[in-house]
């Protein structure tokens, strides 16, 4: 009996090892693809920004204008040029400001909509919960173009305001404020869905208990609801901010001629100004910002897991 049992166990162990090997192989494929098609170009690009124009960078360097070449070793010269340029400094500032403001506006709006749908009753709630997903199904290019032609100086909105004798100057067409609104518009469905589902997970009993104890609505929000949805909040902020940091379509179609967000500026330097090195410097700067945001996300995830562990 025993020997049979051992044989069965041994037979089971071999397929298990094979399954593990296949699993590793399957998992390594996407990793391999990422390393080859993302990792290698990233390393090459970073080296190019540091003045390395040899090897695989020689092709791009051969047609580039105004590039900094390291005589030996590496140099931060291209980065110095970036920070010396008043134009690019203001592009960087506007990129950061737009990213921060759009995240704050997005979270405030998504929270308001989420609370309304969570606690509201009746047909209006249903209408709102259907409407806020609409932007998800409108391609960004089309949405941007539609929005900017709607609210530009001679658009439908201005016409409508003029019809009623209302002031219609200072509309957000082709302004940085318009870019913020555009980014909020495109990110809204994702934000409301995440925050909304977080809110659905807050038990009614918890809220009622707080109310029974005499807590006012704002206090309930601050002490009960917000802590419960901390993770979805962080996810919304981090993911939308990462997108905003490197945004191209929305600021290109809806933004002013200057200052430009870095996504637009780097495209100009790459395609029109013949300066791929400066374009890649901007890409690296955006990339570093995104890594910082990813750090926040990982920290929040870990803290939340620890939280659950402690509670469990």
């Amino acid at each position, binding site marked *: 009996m025993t020997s049979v049992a051992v044989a069965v166990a041994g037979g089971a162990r071999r397929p298990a090892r094979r399954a593990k090997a296949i699993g590793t192989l399957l998992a390594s494929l996407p990793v391999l693809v990422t390393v080859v098609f993302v990792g290698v170009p990233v390393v090459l690009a970073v080296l190019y920004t540091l003045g390395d124009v040899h090897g695989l960078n020689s092709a*791009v360097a051969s*047609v*580039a*204008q*105004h590039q900094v070449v390291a005589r030996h070793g590496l140099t931060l010269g291209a980065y110095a040029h970036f920070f010396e*340029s*008043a*134009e690019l400094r*203001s592009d960087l500032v506007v990129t950061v400001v737009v990213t921060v403001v759009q995240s704050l506006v997005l979270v405030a709006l998504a929270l308001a909509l989420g609370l309304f749908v969570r606690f509201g009753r009746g047909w209006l709630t249903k209408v709102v919960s259907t409407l806020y997903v609409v932007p998800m199904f409108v391609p960004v290019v089309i949405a941007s*173009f539609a929005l900017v032609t709607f609210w530009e*100086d*001679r658009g439908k909105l201005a016409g409508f305001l003029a019809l009623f004798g209302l002031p219609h100057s200072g509309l957000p067409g*082709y302004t940085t404020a318009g870019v913020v609104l555009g980014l909020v518009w495109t990110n809204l469905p994702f934000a409301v869905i995440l925050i909304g589902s977080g809110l659905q997970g807050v038990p009614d009993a918890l809220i009622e208990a707080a109310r029974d104890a005499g807590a006012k609505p704002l206090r309930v929000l601050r002490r009960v609801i917000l802590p419960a949805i901390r993770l979805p909040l962080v996810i919304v902020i981090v993911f939308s901010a990462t997108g905003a940091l490197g945004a*191209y379509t929305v600021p*290109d*179609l809806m933004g*002013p*001629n*200057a*200052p430009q967000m870095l*996504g637009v500026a*780097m*495209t*100009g*330097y*790459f*395609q*029109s*100004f*013949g*300066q*791929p090195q400066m*374009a890649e410097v901007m890409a690296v700067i955006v990339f570093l910002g995104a890594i910082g945001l990813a750090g926040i996300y990982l920290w929040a995830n870990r803290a939340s897991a620890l939280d659950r562990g402690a509670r469990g």
Partner: protein
Amino acid sequence: MPTPNQPIVPPRSVLHRTRSRRGLAAMGAAVLGGSLLAACGGSPGSHPAAGSSPASTAALSAASSAAPKKAKVVTLTLATDLTDPISGTNLLPWQNVWVPAFEKAYPDIKVDIVGDANSSDDTALYDRIVAAEKSHRPPPVDMTDASILPELVEQGYGVRVTSKLVPRLAEIYPSQMSLARYEATPFRGSAVVLAYDSAKVKNPPHTLPALLAWIKAHPGQFTYCPPSSGGSGEGFVQDVASAHIPKAQEMEFLDSYKPALESEWKPGLAELRALGPDMYRHGFYPNGNTAVLQLLANGSISMAPVWSDQSHAALAAGLLPKTTKFLQLTPAMPGSPSYVMVIKGSPDEAAAFSFINFMLSPTEQDLVAKYMHGFPGVRWSDAPAGLRAEFAGIESGYALNWDAQFTNDLAAKWQAEVPGA
């Protein structure tokens, strides 16, 4: 978000063909009638002959023609990246208009079009032409007008054009022939011109100083696209910058890139910056040639620099008000000719030059004007009368576009110093 298909720097050359093409390329993606038709439109002409040698194709078609009396039919191949001027009309100039007219006149010569949808196809074609030459084979195509033409000319891949091969050579401006080292023949052209709504503008300016004064006197009525977004804006900016450059130095910007010369642009850029408050919306520059035409069309502005061919095509298609008129400044704003070349080693060189000569005939030049709204390839004095009538007011020629590396820098400096300041 760089598109891999686009070259980082437009190929550098004295011909500057890529820059002028920007006008047409942008038109292909035009929002005016925006559709992918233009992109698809480039390929129906793609022909299997692209891969095989033209000689064998000619032999094949000769063998298959049953009529014994008929002379041997020669088949030429022409590689092009030209699409329909107004996207969506699906009327391709070479395939549907110019080649049929030639084949009617020359029944013994057939022309197959190899369509290139984008610049990466052109690069592949360039590689194949080089490879064919290195292995002493006939080139993959006999003729081309694609965006790689300047490099081919620079590397000496064109058959030298003589008046024996092309009798109509005498009708072409010698300066345009020497720009292409006599390796390619201009058959059409386009320039940046001033478009205005004659219903609103009664006395349009005819010189650059008069135009600048007009802009200041009519705030909000004028704008142009950023030079990085379209050739019409680039032409206007180059025109303002070159107005402040000593005449003797102007030629230096046509060739051999010397960044030190760029300090000459300072007064021109300062002038453009000072114009900002008087521009449309106190300094708004719409992205691209097409966006400028849209502002003209909806009456937001009443004057702007535009591409001659694109704007005439838009006017003909009803996309601009009927009251839109065009004029060229004196001295003229920049533009460039478009060339077609016969590639060295083509087994049917004589037939190819018959084709090129015919492209310069009044028949074809009329069709160039009709379907492309392009300037004639020949001198204005030799152009058909109807064509001169269409372009009355803007036929005074054009200044030449600067070298691509200079215009790259001009676009970068404009971005930093005009809207950014």
